[in-house]
């Protein structure tokens, strides 16, 4: 999985190794006009650049053109096949750990996905890292991002590849005198509350009256009506914020030694939701030594990221507080509890909570060390090695002040206030050794890589909590009087020990035909004892039509490549107790009353022959470059996810009805396109357009009957049943009729849509004019459905809390017969357009800035998420609001 590095090394070592760059894929999306045209130059020289991989490469310039700060936003903008489930509710939260995403469709059953979302593998310079570490990297350090989707690329990742791979290559210093780079970003951010349209105080009271309800009594209603209070809770809880980030890099070097030192800080940056804060501190050192054909480098970084929040409820919950409530106690302070004495509902006052010492704090310390070696053995052979050590420590502290409203109803004498501690740490060692060979003979060129690697990771977590804190400011566990009775101390520890080997070979003839093959063998502690060794393969063929004799005359046809690939990769979904007999203690079930005679029982019937989940990926791709003006790439893929985790029936005489097994198949079929056109090109003025999109269709191809019955027999309200032929992302709803006065359910819940869009993608323009650059980028989605939770609230929400304004209209809030259900009319088609970024930049002429010792100076203004339009009127950002921002970036090199 990691020979990508070998290849990169090879690239530096010997030009002939360049043929192996095919493994690194290609960049086609929004490439700004290239000045030097490096790749073209190389291509002309060696005429070997098959570039048949369907992996997507995003360059640093592209990333920064859409978002100079947020790596996650930038990556998910460019890769339309990324799907996320959390974004709609998490909004622009700086606290949320991004990284849960699907590449090219969902590959598991919906419930498995909800319990533990699949994550692609994240890799920084060859080392496996946690998603959090990946996205906390500074975007200015990124040289390029490679999103691996190609069957052959994924096969190389073996047991880890099935959910996709996102790789980062970082900038390395180049030869030259010492340079000092300084990056500054100043960000103004404000909440985007446009999706919220809540009732005002008087509207809320009107609705209550109309429905024959009161807040508690007629007197209380009268009080609210007369008080004239109309609190806009959303505005009270959000704020415009200014934050800033700084980064300094010092680098340079000569033929033998290169070095770089970096430091970055973004101190106590506030989020738009009051009480939220994020701070990043990072330092790094890189050194490289080269002697003849031997090279060694070491990169060491240390990062500390701290996030804070003070409110424990979700933003959507606070939006439900009625506008008629006054947060002030009239004496200059805040009320702890809002509502008249005889009111049915009493409300928490978030403004009061914000004034307390409560907090939820998360600190992450991470150390990353990566050593790389390479040795050119001559005659086309090269040896590469890598060793990395990654350690993350996460400390989470949650303090709920004893003065908090949540303890208001506790009787005197009970413990109030709670301090919870969770500590987790991950540590991994990884070593890799590879031998590559590259050569050519006549019109043939060929290469091979043989590598072995070893990975050992330890992950642990422990948490405990204490209760009984006397005063607000005594916020530490040492002040608690007892363990929390409601949460037992909890801990786990698990290991990932994997060893593997890869053999890849590649052969190209006359630059026209090319074949590459890969085999990967993994042995891992995460696999069941009887299936501990896993084999994967990948194979691709490509045909470069533009090089054919018959295409010679078509001078304008720079390139036309057809490629087909097939490959397998794996993923481990099962837990250890699924395949080994495990015992757990029946702590709450002693055998003899008061004798503390506890039993230990077998957790479940294990399946020692449990297999990993296999992804069988197939793709076809067409790449065309017409007159270097129009670049098009179209990928078609048909990926099967098979041997999923299911349950299979057992003979009842085994003592168990069923156990975990493998079965079922989910197919994701889709098309992706990337189009990049340079519509106008003059030395001082150029205009380029780009667009990309992806369509994915998810279908359950086979579904074991017993498993389907088991799964569908215990569906929660939100879950759609698994049905062969339907998508795993299906949405279901209950049909109903409305006769003008009353709405009635007319049938059982049925599948009414899928959450996957028909088409999702981006488009934009970039303009270069003299020293100015200008860019605009949009992302869109067409089709697919969403369950409109706001409509559900409008229909069924309690009128004593605040609702969307549509609740006032009888068209939306019907008289309904029966218990609230998820009606099919709440499932709506979702088309959306988001103006993701607008960027204006100015690069100073070097002769002008030389006087102030500057070599380079550029200024950018980037605006993100300026507007969002969608066909569904639904509250977005229910956990954390979305935000809009304007960033002023300065990049200076001394």
């Amino acid at each position, binding site marked *: 999985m990691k020979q990508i590095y070998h290849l990169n090394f090879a690239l530096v070592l010997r030009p002939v190794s360049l043929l192996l760059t095919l493994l690194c894929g290609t960049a086609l999306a929004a490439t700004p006009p290239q000045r030097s045209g490096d790749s073209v130059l190389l291509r002309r020289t060696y005429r070997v650049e098959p570039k048949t991989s369907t992996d997507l490469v995003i360059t640093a310039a592209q990333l920064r053109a859409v978002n100079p700060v947020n790596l996650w936003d930038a990556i998910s903008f460019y890769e339309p096949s990324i799907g996320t489930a959390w974004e709609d509710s998490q909004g622009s939260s700086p606290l949320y750990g991004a990284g849960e995403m699907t590449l090219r469709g969902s590959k598991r059953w919906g419930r498995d996905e909800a319990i533990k979302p699949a994550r692609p593998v994240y890799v920084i310079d060859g080392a496996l890292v946690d998603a959090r570490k990946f996205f906390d990297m500074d975007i200015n350090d990124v040289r390029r991002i490679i999103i691996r989707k190609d069957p052959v690329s994924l096969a190389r990742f073996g047991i880890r590849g099935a959910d996709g791979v996102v790789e980062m290559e970082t900038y390395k210093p180049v030869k030259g005198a010492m340079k000092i780079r300084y990056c500054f970003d100043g960000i103004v951010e404000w909440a985007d509350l446009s999706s919220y349209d809540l009732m005002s105080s008087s509207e809320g009271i009107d609705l209550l009256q109309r429905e024959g309800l009161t807040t508690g009594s007629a007197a209380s209603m009268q009080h609210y009506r007369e008080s004239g209070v109309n609190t806009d809770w959303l505005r009270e809880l959000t704020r415009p914020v200014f934050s800033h980030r700084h980064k300094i890099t010092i680098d340079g070097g000569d033929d033998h030694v290169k070095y770089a030192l970096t430091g970055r800080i973004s101190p106590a940056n506030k989020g738009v939701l009051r009480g939220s804060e994020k701070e990043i501190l990072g330092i790094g050192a890189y050194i490289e030594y080269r002697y003849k054909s031997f090279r060694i480098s070491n990169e060491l970084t240390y990062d500390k990221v701290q996030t804070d929040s003070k409110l424990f409820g979700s933003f959507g919950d606070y939006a439900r507080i009625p506008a008629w409530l006054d947060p002030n106690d009239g004496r200059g302070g805040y009320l702890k509890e809002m509502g008249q004495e005889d009111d049915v509902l009493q409300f928490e006052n978030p403004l009061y909570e914000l004034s307390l010492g409560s907090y939820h704090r998360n600190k992450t310390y991470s150390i990353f060390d990566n050593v790389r070696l390479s040795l050119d053995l001559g005659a086309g052979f090269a040896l590469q090695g890598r060793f990395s050590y990654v350690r993350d420590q996460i400390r989470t502290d949650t303090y709920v002040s004893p003065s908090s409203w949540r303890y208001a109803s506790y009787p005197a004498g009970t413990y109030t206030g709670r301090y919870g501690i969770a500590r987790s740490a991950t540590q991994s060692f990884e070593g890799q050794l590879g031998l590559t060979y590259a050569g050519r003979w006549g019109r043939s060129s060929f290469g091979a890589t043989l590598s072995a690697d070893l990975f050992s990771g330890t992950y642990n977590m422990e948490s405990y909590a204490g209760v009984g804190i006397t005063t607000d400011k005594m916020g530490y566990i040492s002040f608690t009087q007892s363990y929390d009775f409601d949460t037992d101390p909890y801990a786990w520890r698990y290991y990932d020990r994997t060893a593997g080997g890869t053999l890849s070979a590649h052969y190209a003839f006359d630059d026209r035909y090319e074949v590459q093959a890969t085999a990967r063998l993994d042995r891992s502690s995460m696999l069941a004892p009887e299936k501990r060794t896993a084999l994967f393969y990948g194979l691709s063929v490509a045909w470069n039509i533009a090089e054919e004799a018959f295409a010679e005359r078509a001078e304008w046809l720079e390139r036309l490549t057809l490629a087909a690939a097939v490959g397998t990769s794996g993923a481990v979904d099962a837990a250890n107790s699924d395949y080994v007999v495990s015992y757990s203690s029946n702590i709450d079930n002693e055998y003899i009353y*008061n004798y503390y005679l506890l039993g230990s029982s077998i957790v479940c019937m294990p399946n020692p022959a449990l297999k990993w989940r296999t992804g069988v990926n197939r793709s076809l791709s067409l790449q065309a470059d017409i007159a270097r003006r129009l670049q098009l790439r179209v990928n078609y893929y048909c990926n099967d996810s098979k041997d999923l985790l299911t349950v299979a029936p057992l003979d009842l005489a085994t003592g168990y009805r069923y156990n975990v097994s493998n079965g079922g198949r989910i197919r994701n079929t889709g098309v992706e396109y990337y189009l990049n056109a340079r519509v106008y090109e003059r030395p001082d003025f150029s205009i380029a357009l780009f667009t990309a999109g992806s369509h994915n269709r998810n279908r359950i191809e086979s579904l074991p009957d017993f498993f389907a019955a088991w799964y569908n027999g215990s569906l929660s309200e939100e879950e759609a049943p698994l049905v062969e032929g339907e998508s795993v992302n299906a949405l279901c709803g209950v049909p109903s009729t409305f006769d003008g006065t009353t709405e009635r359910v007319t049938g059982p819940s049925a599948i009414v849509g899928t959450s996957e869009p028909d088409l999702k993608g981006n488009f934009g323009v970039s303009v270069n004019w003299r020293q100015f650059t200008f860019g605009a980028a949009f992302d869109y989605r067409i089709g697919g459905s969403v369950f409109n939770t706001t409509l559900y609230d409008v229909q069924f929400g309690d009128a004593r809390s605040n609702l969307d304004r549509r609740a006032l209209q009888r068209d939306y809030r019907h008289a309904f017969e029966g218990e609230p259900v998820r009606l099919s009319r709440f499932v709506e088609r979702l088309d959306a357009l988001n103006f993701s970024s607008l960027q204006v930049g100015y690069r100073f002429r070097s002769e002008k800035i030389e006087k102030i010792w500057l070599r380079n100076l550029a200024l950018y203004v980037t605006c993100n998420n300026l507007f969002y339009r969608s066909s569904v009127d639904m509250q977005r950002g229910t956990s954390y609001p979305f935000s809009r921002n304007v960033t002023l970036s300065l990049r200076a090199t001394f």
Partner: protein
Amino acid sequence: MKKICILLACAVSVSCNDWFGISPDGTSVTEDRFFRNENAYLNALTDIYTQLRAESLYGGTLTVGEVEFMGQNFQPGTTRYAAAGVLDYSDATFAAAIEQTYVDMYRAIASCNNLIDHIEHTQVVFNDKSRKRIITGELYGLRGALHFELLRLFHPAYAVNPNFVGLPYMTRFGMTASAGLSTTAFLEQVLNDLDRAAKELKGVDPIFSGFSLSSVLPGEIDSRLRTFCMNYYAVQAVRARVCLYMGDYPQAAACAEEVFEHQTLVEKRYRLFYFFAPGEYGDDLSFSREHIFGISTMPEGFPEFTEALYGEGGAVVTSDYAEIFPDTHDTRYRDWFDNSQPDRVLMSRKFGTESVLNGYLSTGGTENVLPCRAPFIKLGEVALIHAEALARQAGTEVATAAARILELQQARDITELSERLEDPAFTCEDLLEYVEREYRRDFFGEGQLFFYYKRLNRTTMPKSDGTELEMTSERYTWPIPAVSVHANQL
């Protein structure tokens, strides 16, 4: 680099499997690590007993639940047991209950099997050799006894068809079940296991010397609690039950006789089980001191479940209740039932929250009142087995055969049989009628009466509403559940 490579290769090849075999820690631990300690075996054994008190096993279905209503001691108060009362196996609720019992019983057996596998191959040296034998013995005893329970539910009576092929005899934990066996072959396995159990327990089971007053350290086997486990006498009692079922009367009588040995070997105050004389039992209304093996319950479990079932508004006793108890002196009549409404007699006292076990000490040494327990096998049944086995053998003196029933009746404060014995014309044949009477009196709420009728393949059963229930071998036999239809139950 090459050296590193060689070193790495060596390291990998030498300790490869250990290196990959690492297991996580969390809420569970893998068997190999779990069984590295002597106490683990006791813990895993305790779990099996805990499993037995499930509502689908001795905490319900097999004692106070379905099987009891099948035996016609009670008229079902709720619709839940209506189908069991008329033995209608086509009823979905009843079928689901049967399936659950089947799975849970085999689950307990599976737990035994995994534990047997480990204790027989373990490298762990036990501090006390006898402890290992006791645990092994209990496991074999449980495996045999539980299999027999399944057999008498799901196979036709031995007397009807000893060649019926049905249930597998499970001796290995795993995903596959062994092939079904004929009743004869199955019983052979049951007896093998019980023999093995007796062999292991013989001489080392603390029950032989009665309970000791010395305190017990955590992890030690508490002699006071032996009747909460499959002890030596329980094994013999089950063996007597099995032999009687097979019609092997001499063996049955011999095993039963051996159980009574406890009464002579141990001084009464150290005895673990004995007949409760009137006035001795206090609040122990289920006469738990007569249990040779009973399953402990939790206050909120079995007692409350039984209270709901047989308490106020619950199941009413069979309509021939008055005929069963002609003598109202009978302690069972007086202490088990609420006779205040003659037309609605309830068994509200035998099991229930009021009925408790006294005389136990908690680990702290203080008096510990335990909730009533579910009997697995008790002295009364052994007495009846003894009498029946002797009576059915030619040439037995009727007085010898009746001896144990006389003891039982004496404890119940009735003189019915002793009066009849004075009649010189009283034969062993006549004694069998008294055995049946006692079967009808002594097992209210214990689920044993049904098996009495089944064993003898009675063509009619006196139904709880006063009518007669036509019985066939098919009606006596629970259908073996095929594939799980109730997919969502664990």
